[in-house]
């Protein structure tokens, strides 16, 4: 018999209320876990895509907030960048969300400079690569193959032009797995954007240090007005999808936090009102006020902790279900890092403390003589 077992007992003997409280908290925590995991998954996926491509820096046009980035003519910038120290390759990339074929959802269509290092990280699982820059073929990611119901040899109509699927690849990045990839030249041609790219991928040599990358960035700022160089990590942070999903997960954390704290607050307050007499007895037998507070805190923390742990499991389960749903295929690739899960547990404990604070104070302030006669 100690404080903790007493706290457990107090919760255990009010199973209905404890159950409701724990479910409410676990739902909130599940939402936090699922959304945050997905948001991080987006980020990690973009990061993976960048890392896997071996891109150290990307150079793109400065776009105003909320603006659609618009393609630019690569030639002049590309030539300038090639002269920068440590630069090995400067490779153009053009991308667009397009519907390919009737009734299918829009997919990413990437144009990558033929023969550039960008292709190196893709693993061919079927078929072959294009044999020339202008050969009218595409390769598609394994997920795109599934979504579009296409395989090697099938034809694909993109912006009114016919392509045949030369190969199916797998990429470490979910985004690329769901994409159609062709040579930059073909992409520019079908989109009627000759010579244009969205971004220039820069690969530097092994000896380049972070200081060199910083130097590269300031050199772009100084000599290429209207352009900006971003390391791939920064790019991911600026990605709208990543930003929106992160903002959503932050909002969820906030709302779930508030609701969770309120639920605990309500539960503990009700429980304390019911147990006023019991608290009077405890004070009478010599319990310290802080011991009473501790008991209430233990109870709230046990509730939130249980809610938190169940919530984590439910959140992971929800994400798993979402990942396997047809409409979501390839769009999410959730990441649950151990430190995040520890933080979620920490968050639930915080909820317990926040929600239990006032009830605990209230319980500790009871006057024993009054509390004893409370019915």
């Amino acid at each position, binding site marked *: 018999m100690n404080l903790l077992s007493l706290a457990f007992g107090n919760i255990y003997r009010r199973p209905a209320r404890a159950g409701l409280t724990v479910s409410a908290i676990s739902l909130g925590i599940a939402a936090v876990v699922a959304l945050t995991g997905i948001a991080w998954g987006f980020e990690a996926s973009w990061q993976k895509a960048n890392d896997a491509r071996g891109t150290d820096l990307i150079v793109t046009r400065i776009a105003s907030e909320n603006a659609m980035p618009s393609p630019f003519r690569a030639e002049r910038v590309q030539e300038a960048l090639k002269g920068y120290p440590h630069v090995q390759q400067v490779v153009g990339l053009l991308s667009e969300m397009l519907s390919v074929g009737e009734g299918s959802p829009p997919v990413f269509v990437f144009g990558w400079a033929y023969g550039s290092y960008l292709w190196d990280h893709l693993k061919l699982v079927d078929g072959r690569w294009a044999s020339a820059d202008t050969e009218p073929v595409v390769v598609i990611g394994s997920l795109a193959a599934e979504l579009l119901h296409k395989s090697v040899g099938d034809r694909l109509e993109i912006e009114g032009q016919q392509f045949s699927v030369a190969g199916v690849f797998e990429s470490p990045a979910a985004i690329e797995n769901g994409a159609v990839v062709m040579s930059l030249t073909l992409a520019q041609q079908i989109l009627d954007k000759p010579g244009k790219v969205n971004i220039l991928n820069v690969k530097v040599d092994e000896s380049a240090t972070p200081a060199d990358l910083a130097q590269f960035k300031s050199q772009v700022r100084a000599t290429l007005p209207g352009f900006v160089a971003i390391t791939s990590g920064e790019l991911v942070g600026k990605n709208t999808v990543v930003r929106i999903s992160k903002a959503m997960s932050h909002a969820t954390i906030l709302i779930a936090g508030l609701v969770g704290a309120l639920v605990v607050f309500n539960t503990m307050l009700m429980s304390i009102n019911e147990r006023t007499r*019991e608290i009077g007895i405890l004070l009478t*037998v*010599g319990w310290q006020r802080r011991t009473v507070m501790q008991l209430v805190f233990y109870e709230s923390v046990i509730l939130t902790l249980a809610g938190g742990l169940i919530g984590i499991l439910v959140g992971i389960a929800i994400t798993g279900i979402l990942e396997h749903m047809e409409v979501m295929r390839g769009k999410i690739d959730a990441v649950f890092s151990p430190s995040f899960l520890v933080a979620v547990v920490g968050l639930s404990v915080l909820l317990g403390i926040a929600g239990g604070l006032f009830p605990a104070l209230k319980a500790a302030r009871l006057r024993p*003589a009054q509390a004893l006669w409370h019915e």
Partner: protein
Amino acid sequence: MIIHTNDRFARHWAACPGRGSAAPASIAPFRFTSRTGLPPPHGFRYKMNTESFPEAIVRARALALHFDDGDTQALNGVDLAIRAGEFVAVVGPSGCGKSSLLNIIGTLEAPTTGEVFFRAQPYSGIRDPSRFRRQHIGFIFQSFNLIPTLCALDNVLVATIGTPGTASEKMARARDLLAKLGLENRLAHFPNKMSGGERQRVAIARALINSPDLILADEPTGSLDSANSAAVLTLLTDIQKERGLTVIMATHDPSVSARADRIVAMRDGQIAPSPEAAP
């Protein structure tokens, strides 16, 4: 100024080594009840040997307790001295202020005016009443005040939470105590599965578990039939004698108060003149 005394105290006093039987009845214990008496010695906290140094363990001075902005006067100028080892019954009609007096002595309630001293230490100087209760006072109530969701053993153990000692040592103490009170077969029983007498014995065990100096019993037999009343009372007096405890018991049952060393009668929030009281 009201001075209470009885034979037992006189015997103590006479038996006191180093004091002549002619020692004036107005010294030592009585000096503390004087309004002009010396301030209590600083840091007066050690346990007194009540046998060799009979002393007022509790002394109340001019206690008043008002409720509802003075409309209800539960206590109205109570002076009282209780000596260590005494078994005192506080008697009087319902509503005369017995419970109020015990609550104040038990630090469950603060007096509106007046002061209580525990071994000359003023209550107003107690910084941690909980700790004080835990160390010095055990409570027994008419309604038992057991926690319905805890078994007998846990109801006793709950009073040891926050006290020094190991769990196994506390457990052993609680078992011993309950066994001594004849409850060795009731350890895992919940209050609603026990008789009134058993419940009150659990409450007595809880009151004793931290080895208090003073037991405050508010109508301890009020909810019991006469057989159980007698049994509980016998237990209480036995333990009191065995441990040299001081007991203050509120009751309106003459057969109960008869077991006390001394009776303090109350009426309308005041101590009523009693035939036993000294002039």
